[in-house]
């Protein structure tokens, strides 16, 4: 077959056909993967929730409520066991990380005590700031079982109670900032009243 001439009609037809076929294929693949993508996302969220909350048997994602603060959104996930509130997980953030946004999942007990913290997303320097991940150092474990009422959520350099990660004060500050934001906006009566 000879090569098509570059006439206006030929170019128009060729490009139209190529884009049409491509979009049809993409639409099909999108439909095909829509469900697994949503499932993978929910799976990740559930894993983080189970990690930071005490045992529960409701669906915290269904009872989730949001609160817009500081130009972003906090997500609250109340956890219940036999309809009694056993904790609230807060998906919180801090824009002050060394590499930008940090997202954490903080689990609170009904009295405001921090149960456990999981890092969802960060861009900190490997080997320094990334020690905030529980798998890399014990930094995030020092918050477990502490109540922010008596435990001041800032690094020792700033007069708080938190041992900063060595050589990563900025990352540690951002971590505290995120936890503090979650605690400040936590309304424990709201979760219980529902």
């Amino acid at each position, binding site marked *: 077959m000879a090569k098509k001439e570059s006439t206006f009609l030929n170019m128009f037809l060729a490009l139209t056909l190529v884009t049409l076929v491509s979009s049809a294929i993409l639409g099909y693949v999108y439909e095909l*993967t829509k469900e697994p*993508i949503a499932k993978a996302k929910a799976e990740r969220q559930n894993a983080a929730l189970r990690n930071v909350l005490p045992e529960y048997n409701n669906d915290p994602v269904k009872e989730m409520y949001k609160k817009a603060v500081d130009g972003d959104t906090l997500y609250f996930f109340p956890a219940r066991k036999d309809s009694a509130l056993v904790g609230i997980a807060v998906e919180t953030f801090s824009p002050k990380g060394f590499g930008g946004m940090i997202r954490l999942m903080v689990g609170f007990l009904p009295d405001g005590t921090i149960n456990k913290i999981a890092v969802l997303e960060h861009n900190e320097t490997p080997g320094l700031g990334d020690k905030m991940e529980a798998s890399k150092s014990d930094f995030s474990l020092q918050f477990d079982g502490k109540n922010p009422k008596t435990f001041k959520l800032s690094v020792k350099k700033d007069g708080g109670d938190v041992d900063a990660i060595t050589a990563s004060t900025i990352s540690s500050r951002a971590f505290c900032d995120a936890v503090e934001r979650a605690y400040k906006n936590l309304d424990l009566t709201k979760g219980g009243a529902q």
Partner: protein
Amino acid sequence: MNQWKNFSKGLIVENAVFVQVLGMCPTLGTTTSAYNGLGMGLATTFVLLMSNIVVSMVRNFIPDKVRIPAFIVIIASFVTVVQLTMQAYVPALYKELGLFIPLIVVNCLVLGRAEAFASKNNVWAAAIDGLGMGLGFTLALFMLGSVREILGAGSWLGFKFIKGDGMLLFVLAPGAFLALAYLISIMNKVSKKKA
């Protein structure tokens, strides 16, 4: 044309990274570990193989003046397919590679093969060429990722063999340039000896 030659030239003699020095953006950006390098390489290989096949199939039907936009649309479609599939079935790897997956579209290696080879050869030869070039690219990324992970994190494919951190420089951006430079110079030394 000898098909074996078509395939093997991408692996060593015309290796995209070590010899042609194409596709540097993902090469330097994603090779923080052997696993990431392998994932990025295989994703690119898939796009390269499929786009080479399709471009070769439609090469007589696309007028010359609009061939570049047509090729780009074809390549972008396959990249999006890869992106959606990875998001659905390997979310952890997708999170790690993030932005670099959509950037496969502008990897000059992919368009380069479409323009220089697939648009002038039959489907079978184009497929072989795409596979060879892609696997060569994967091999290079895997090697670079391995070197950086072993030196920088003291582990390989996630298995740690020293306690604590390695030479962190190699996981950070400058380490990519250093490791790549040494790998290229070693490749040059070896290939010179043969000739």
